[in-house]
């Protein structure tokens, strides 16, 4: 019996770290990670304390009955926002208590969630292109501007995905994407085709805006997780700065 408990707490700790790391890279706020981990730990009758940072998680699990505990660190991999995982883990954390899942079942579910398929690449590219065109329209651009932004966003995202696959630094990926989009959307402005093209140039890079880091930053700050909030905000700021750098490069090339 005692031996079984011992294995339990180690397996539980490892699983909790996996879940936490998965939540972190999928774009959850710090409060959400802490709540989810505590909830899962509580349904196994344990207490979990965490130190959460952008790149590393530190976890301590104990059950309060004896002096055994689990204590470990885990590094998170590169962040890639995935809200299907967020939603799946949130659902799972409630199901564990309701249906009395074992740790093996939790591991299986985590594995399934991590392997969930993304939208088909062509769909993502086209819809993000349309989103760019929508930004352009909202800023007051015409049909031709919208088309150029559509093209720019689509190719920009394709370049970003390609660069990420080639394992470039994430910020450099954003720079390449901004460069591509602005180069394409800047063509009408450079050669004087159509009218009101500054909208196109300015909105072509908007599909890169770091919405999740910035909103999570504010969420963290207002929850009192000031350190994480600051770090996420800084990350968002770095991405914005990289986008601006891409725009400036294009302005230099086109001599605007």
């Amino acid at each position, binding site marked *: 019996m005692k031996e079984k408990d011992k294995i339990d707490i180690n397996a539980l700790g490892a699983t909790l770290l996996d879940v936490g790391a998965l939540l972190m890279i999928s774009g959850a*706020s710090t409060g959400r990670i802490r709540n989810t981990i505590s909830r899962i730990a509580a349904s196994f009758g344990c207490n979990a304390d965490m130190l959460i940072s952008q790149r590393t998680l530190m976890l301590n699990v104990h059950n309060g009955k004896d002096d055994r505990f689990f204590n470990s660190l885990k590094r998170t991999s590169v962040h890639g926002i995935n*809200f299907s995982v967020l939603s799946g883990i949130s659902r799972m954390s409630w199901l564990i208590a309701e249906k009395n899942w074992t740790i093996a079942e939790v591991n299986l579910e985590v594995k399934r969630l991590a392997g969930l398929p993304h939208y088909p690449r062509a769909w993502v590219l086209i819809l993000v292109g*349309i989103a760019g065109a929508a*930004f352009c329209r909202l800023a007051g651009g015409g049909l031709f501007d919208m088309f150029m932004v559509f093209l720019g966003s689509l190719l920009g*995202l394709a370049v970003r995905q390609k660069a990420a696959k080639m394992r470039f630094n994430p910020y450099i990926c954003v720079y390449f994407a901004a460069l591509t989009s602005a180069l394409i959307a800047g063509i009408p402005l450079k050669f004087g085709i159509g009218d009101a093209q500054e909208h196109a140039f300015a909105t072509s890079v*908007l599909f890169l*805006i770091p919405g*999740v880091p910035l909103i999570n930053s504010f969420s963290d700050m*207002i929850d009192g997780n000031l350190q994480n909030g600051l770090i996420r905000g800084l990350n968002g700021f770095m991405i914005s700065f990289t986008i601006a750098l891409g725009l400036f490069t294009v302005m230099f090339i086109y001599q605007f």
Partner: protein
Amino acid sequence: MEWVLFFERGFWFGMAAVGFAVLFNVPVRTLLAVFIMAAAGGLTRTLMLQYEANIIVSTLVGAMLIGVMSILFAHKKHAPPPVFAIPAVIPMVPGILAYKMTLGLLNLAGDLHQETYSQILSETVNNGLKVMLILMSLAGGVKVPMLLTRKESAKEIRFKKRL
């Protein structure tokens, strides 16, 4: 404003949000909700701007509407509120203002005469502050329902009063 143009704007707000939702890989069942929320929030802001409300206040109200709707949809579609709320508020990000601000900053780094310098400085500071406050009202507005109900999880929020 003409009604056709008004609802066209709503459509584009929705499409921009759906683009981001797909980029963030939200579950398929939530896509329609994201579209509706973004359109509702964006149109609220457009309407308030039409009646000459301040852009920051209008954004805050639009974001608050999105925040409340995100909790409603979270119950209905079984997904956490941020999954709906984050893609839905992104179309309201002040892209043109941010562009003008960055342009202004670049100009300020160049060699300028005193008069043009102070003019560009005041414009840049104005745009920058607007960008910052709009972003803060977006993020804050979404969080308002959670803060008011003082719950840790949207699952605990009930809309009907219990006896």
